[in-house]
């Protein structure tokens, strides 16, 4: 029998008790992993163990895939019309709303982000996302094409079947919603692997999914490691599509495994080193506020973080002064304290990685304007850090750090800065700050990125697509565009009179 996670929250932001089984979720039930091993869940504020969850193995993935296929062939897929899928998804939304505070508390405990951000962005955004896709479920339409009068041709937008979904640790619940929403709306069944660092909200969602009344096997969740469970999913001969959000490094492995197994369709949301270009005529105060939000929000653990900040020379000094002040004002500390902006990084591994980037910046001769060191002596807290005096060849300018570390670069020429901005293998997002809207649009159109923000950063909506150019990804999430990832198009030709 898998164990239950029982915990009493007694914090300024949230008080309450939780208790739920942390087994693998297969066919509507919570089970031990086949090897009966577990994975510890660590509290990033102090490095201590919160609880442990069942660990899945490739054998468990097999069981989950079987359950997903059975459900697809009997109670889901083409057996559950869109209107019915819509109703169940709406029920899930209502249950998530009822449990919103608890979900936010679990997210803050497990990931380290503040309760306030978790509640107002992660949980609220997840609810919005599922609600948005519930509305699509009965609106997945094909086309009828005109050919000749002795033929009827039309397309059906059918569900793909059993889809594998592998999600990261930076926005655990939100990334689950982005994946479940379109997949369920289109009628697919799912085998999902949450990050081994942050499984709690995903597992809690399984209980809510049962409560909503989804047939067993429609959603299956297998906690486990990337190189076992993740790999089993991407190379499984009976998983018909895999969707992954995480590092570019792992994204390559997944695409390779898909190619080597059954050529399953692959969508990837990978890393970024997104530029934020601030022109002389920008509203400086707004530029400062958005730039800070762009790199420091979620502790810099955001794939689209505006981590390279290019500031035109006319306002460079003033911007840097204000940006440093703003950064100084960001409070780092307990995720459950009401005025905290930034909690700890998610894990020791991430902490070490970010610190090593900071050291490399210092060693390469970049200047630390603020931060550049650990915060406190317990847990994985890092002070918000700004580097200046950098060189494009430095690691801190080229590589994704995924921490609260921004580099600020002075520029003069518009053409040149666009070139510099595009000089990266990544292409997830980009931002432009200027009051000249013509220049804004021109620049946005020239930036090679899947999302171009004008006078804002890190601003997303469930109905606007999101995804990467170049090595930042394949495919789009959110909006109507996500449906294409979970749809298999069949063309039907009905011959009415053409005789051979």
């Amino acid at each position: 029998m898998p164990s239950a996670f029982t915990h009493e929250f007694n914090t300024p932001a949230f008080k309450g008790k939780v208790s739920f089984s942390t087994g693998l979720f297969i066919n509507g039930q919570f089970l031990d992993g086949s090897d009966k091993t577990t994975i510890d869940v660590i509290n990033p504020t102090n490095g201590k163990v919160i609880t442990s969850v069942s660990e899945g193995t490739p054998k468990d993935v097999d069981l989950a895939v079987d359950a997903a296929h059975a459900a697809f062939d009997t109670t889901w897929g083409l057996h559950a019309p869109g209107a019915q899928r819509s109703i169940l998804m709406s029920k899930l939304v209502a249950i998530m709303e009822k449990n919103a505070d608890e979900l936010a508390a679990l997210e803050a405990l497990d990931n380290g982000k503040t309760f306030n951000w978790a509640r107002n962005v992660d949980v609220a955004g997840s609810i919005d996302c599922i609600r948005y896709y519930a509305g699509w479920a009965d609106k997945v339409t094909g086309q009828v094409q005109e050919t000749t009068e002795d033929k009827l041709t039309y397309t059906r937008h059918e569900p793909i079947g059993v889809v594998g979904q592998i999600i990261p640790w930076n926005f655990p619940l939100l990334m689950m919603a982005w994946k479940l929403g379109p997949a369920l709306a289109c009628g697919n069944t799912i085998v999902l692997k949450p990050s081994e660092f942050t499984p709690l909200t995903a597992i809690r969602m399984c209980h809510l999914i049962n409560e909503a009344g989804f047939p067993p096997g429609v959603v299956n969740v297998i906690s486990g490691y990337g190189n076992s469970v993740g790999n089993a999913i991407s190379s499984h001969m009976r998983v018909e599509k895999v969707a992954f959000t995480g590092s570019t490094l792992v994204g390559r492995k997944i695409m390779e495994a898909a190619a080597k197994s059954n050529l399953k369709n692959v969508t990837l949301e990978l890393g970024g080193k997104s530029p934020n270009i601030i022109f002389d005529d920008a509203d400086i105060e707004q530029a400062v506020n958005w730039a800070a939000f762009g790199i420091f929000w979620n502790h810099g653990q955001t794939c689209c973080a505006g981590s390279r900040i290019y500031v035109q020379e006319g306002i460079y000094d003033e911007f840097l002064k204000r940006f440093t002040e703003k950064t100084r004002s960001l409070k780092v500390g307990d995720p459950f304290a009401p005025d905290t902006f930034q909690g700890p990084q998610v894990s020791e591994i991430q902490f070490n990685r970010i610190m090593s980037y900071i050291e490399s910046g210092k060693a390469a001769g970049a200047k630390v304007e603020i931060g550049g060191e650990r915060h406190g002596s317990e847990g994985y807290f890092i002070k918000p850090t700004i580097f200046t005096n950098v060189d494009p060849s430095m690691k801190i300018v080229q590589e994704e750090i995924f921490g609260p570390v921004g580099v600020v670069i002075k520029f003069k020429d518009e053409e040149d800065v666009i070139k510099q901005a595009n000089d990266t293998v990544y292409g997830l997002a980009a931002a432009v700050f200027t009051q000249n809207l013509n220049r804004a649009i021109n620049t946005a159109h020239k930036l090679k990125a899947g999302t171009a923000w004008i006078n804002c950063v890190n601003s997303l909506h469930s109905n606007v697509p999101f995804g990467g150019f170049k090595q930042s990804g394949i495919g789009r999430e959110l909006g109507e565009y996500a449906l294409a990832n979970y749809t298999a198009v069949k063309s039907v030709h009905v011959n009415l009179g053409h005789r051979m």
Partner: protein
Amino acid sequence: MASLSTRIVIRATNRELDIPTGLFINNEFVPSADSPNDLIHLVNPATEETICSVAAGSAKDIDIAVAAARNAFNTTWGKNVTGFERSKLLNKLADLIERDQDILAEVESLNNGKPFKIARDFDIGDTIQCLRYYAGWADKITGQTIEVDNKTKLAFTRHDPIGVCGQIIPWNYPINMWAWKVGPALACGCTIVMKPSELTPLTALMLSKLIAEAGFPPGVVNTIPSLGSVGGAALSAHMDVDKVAFTGSTVTGRKIMEAAAKSNLKKVSLELGGKSPQLVFESADLEQAANWACLGVLYNTGQDCTAGSRLYVQDTIYDKFVSLLVSKAKELVIGDGFDEKSGGGPLVSKTQFDKVWRYIESGRAQGAKVALGGQKRPGKGFFVDPTIFTDINANMDIVRDEIFGPVLAVGRFKTEEEGISLANDTSYGLGAGLHSNDASQCMRVSSALEAGTVWVNQYNLLNNNVPFGGKKQSGIGRELGSYALDEYTSVKAIHWNFGEKLDWPL
């Protein structure tokens, strides 16, 4: 002065309830501004007893309602509210209707006559799904970006809400027709002045109460019970109403379109009458075809715009099919809506009752043969039993005109071409049905039939996500599906020049 609510008693279910009887403007029930003593009296069509009376709105009340709708559009609705918010509110409204489904069904049955179970499970069941369907569209109204010249121009469209919409709905499906209008209009961000039928305004008033309870801002939906010639006419001619949507008779539809043309060229969509044909081919499953044929003309006691009121049967199976049809039609029990045994209720009013009987008499007089029915029932209530005429010809009134009762005209044909020709010989074009097991024939015939909805081996069953509307004189525009959104959307194209400099003179 008319009071703003009244207590009614529904004997059959032992229910007492207070019903709003005022005009609904800005989320409140108010008396008429200039004719506070004008009333509309509502009749129970099964017993001919008066149910209660409601305020009768005047042209001035329409003015006030339009002003309220315009104000809401400019401040709390239209572009001032996000699709997400509209979606939430529409879903809440659906939840409230689900909560109150029994009460609503009882009042619908009392006022319209239809059986209670059908009102609840079909009319209201479909209504809830319809509103949820459109709630799902509210945050998905997208425009396009269009490539013109990448160096100089960004061109894109915005799908703006049209604005203030006048909506005029009929008495045959009061709640369901309300939902078909309200759903897409609100999803797109429009505000509404609704004129329910003067025969059946009660449930529209109860639904207005739920609009307020759901949290829609005041003025987004306004409800003015009134006579068609007063409220309906005022809305169609109003200079500050951007669009009028009407479901009802073709005769009234023309007046509305005329008034729209003469006033401010407001946009018009119309769902009008029909004289919809069904064709039964020799390869058809006769049992099933007979069942669907019965549903087609007897559902809602024939008071359906798509009623399959003409039936043409292929020669080779004519006798067998007609005798099957008659024996099935006989099985329908027409009675009081609260009687468990009733499969259909009375006609909605004395006027309708008299009209249907005039047609039955004309059928006889013009030489058609009565294969079933044709006998008036004694006693109270506007009950008409299933009536089937055979031996028809194309010139008879019962074959040309919309009767809107449980009266079927049955003819015969020899070839597929003849069948299609008979079916299409009408100025209407709302629905059509065909029954055949020959797939190629199904394709040819469904292609050839001139109707906005063609049913193959089925009849009368609609789905909220499939569009519905008329060809020819059965209407303009489409309801249901994504197509309904076009009726409540006004497209603005934006040409944003960021790179082209103009020389002058050219």
